[in-house]
């Protein structure tokens, strides 16, 4: 072997920093996962050991990050073509696909094992299933094959509050399913709003998101319909007693604004201008502002809904609604 061969080998050695691996875990998604899982855990009618509860949330965060890393490993080709994702660690060339797979699998296994130890086998099983669902069912099967990809795949993102609940109660109750359903129904309008103003990106990557496969007009109608179902369903916690007056008021006010923005999208021509040149998440062409507004607001809406549950159950702000709370 000659010195030049050594240099060639040396050039293949990674310069990835720990930060690059952290970025593989989709930190922004992890934040929402931690938050909604915490809400599920706090809202459960059980006094959990604080340390074990903290460890359960930590395991969920690592598990979600592992799923994100596996997603980025499989979708490296797509990410390289899309403006929004081409600065991720794999398209930038700092982390190899095989390293990302290895990192994802190890993080997934350790998070599930630790979850089993810190909470119970049901929560650990649900965590394992949600990682599998996101990495395999959604990423490898649904994403490239059907415009219903995020409708079905949205289930993966809906698991965290249910897992938080199960981690401390050990069982799946109606309230846990309601929390799951809220995020499940929230995902289509949230994702399609983004897809409307980034449709050019998805088309270039051959991902059959709804605006690419069925057109902008059909997507705007479906966003409106899903928004109506979501806002109505978001009132369910009040009927079971999971949510009190604070949650009820938040759900009502937040839902009204959600519907208003969904209506604005429906009446707009959002999605017909193609993607903005700028790859930034919120960069948008003039005609697509309604879609960008709902996308941004939808994150705030979900945050506020779950924050209301946290405030009610963790800070003693739960007030019954006469004639409604069971």
């Amino acid at each position, binding site marked *: *072997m*000659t*010195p030049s*061969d*050594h*240099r060639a*080998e*040396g050039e293949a*050695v*990674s*310069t*990835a*920093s*720990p930060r690059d*691996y952290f970025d593989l875990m989709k930190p922004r998604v992890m934040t929402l996962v931690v938050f909604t899982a915490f809400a599920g855990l706090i809202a459960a009618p059980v006094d959990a*050991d604080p*340390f*074990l509860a903290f*460890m359960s949330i930590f395991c969920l965060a690592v598990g979600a990050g592992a799923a994100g890393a596996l997603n980025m490993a499989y979708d490296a080709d797509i990410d390289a073509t899309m403006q929004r994702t081409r600065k991720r660690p794999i398209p930038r060339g700092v982390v190899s696909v095989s390293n990302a797979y290895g990192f994802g699998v190890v993080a997934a296994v*350790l998070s599930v094992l*630790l979850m089993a*130890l*810190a909470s119970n086998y049901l929560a650990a099983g649900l965590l394992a299933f949600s990682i599998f669902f996101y990495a395999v069912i959604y990423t490898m099967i649904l994403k490239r094959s059907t415009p219903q990809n995020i409708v079905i795949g949205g289930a993966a993102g809906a698991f965290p509050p249910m897992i938080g609940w199960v981690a401390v109660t050990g069982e799946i109750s109606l309230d846990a399913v309601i929390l799951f359903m809220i995020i499940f129904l929230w995902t289509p309008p949230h994702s399609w709003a983004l897809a409307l103003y980034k449709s050019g990106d998805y088309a270039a990557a051959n991902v059959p998101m709804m605006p690419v496969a069925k057109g902008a007009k059909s997507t705007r109608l479906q966003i409106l319909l899903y928004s109506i179902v979501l806002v109505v369903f978001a009132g369910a916690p009040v009927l079971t007693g999971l949510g009190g007056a604070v949650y009820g008021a938040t759900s009502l006010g937040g839902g009204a604004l959600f519907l208003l923005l969904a209506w604005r999208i429906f009446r707009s021509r959002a999605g017909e201008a193609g993607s903005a040149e700028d790859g930034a998440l919120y960069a948008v062409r003039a005609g697509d502002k309604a879609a960008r507004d709902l996308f941004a607001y939808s994150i705030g809406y979900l945050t506020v809904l779950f924050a209301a549950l946290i405030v009610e159950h963790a800070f003693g702000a739960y007030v019954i609604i006469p004639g409604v709370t069971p």
Partner: protein
Amino acid sequence: MTQDNDLMSAREGLPTGETVKLTPEQEGARNKRNIVIAWSLVGFMVAVFAITVVRLGQTAAAGAGA
């Protein structure tokens, strides 16, 4: 000694078996990754130990209350 000999251990003066010459940037990045991996392993062990202790405490308390 040829140019492509193994790198030498500073302490032992023996070949280390490392044949790839890393740039300072690659070496720095590898060191940072190794440190994080080491701390993660320590953290994992501490977490397993702490969870076990808390769980045992709970079991003991439940046994005493029964």
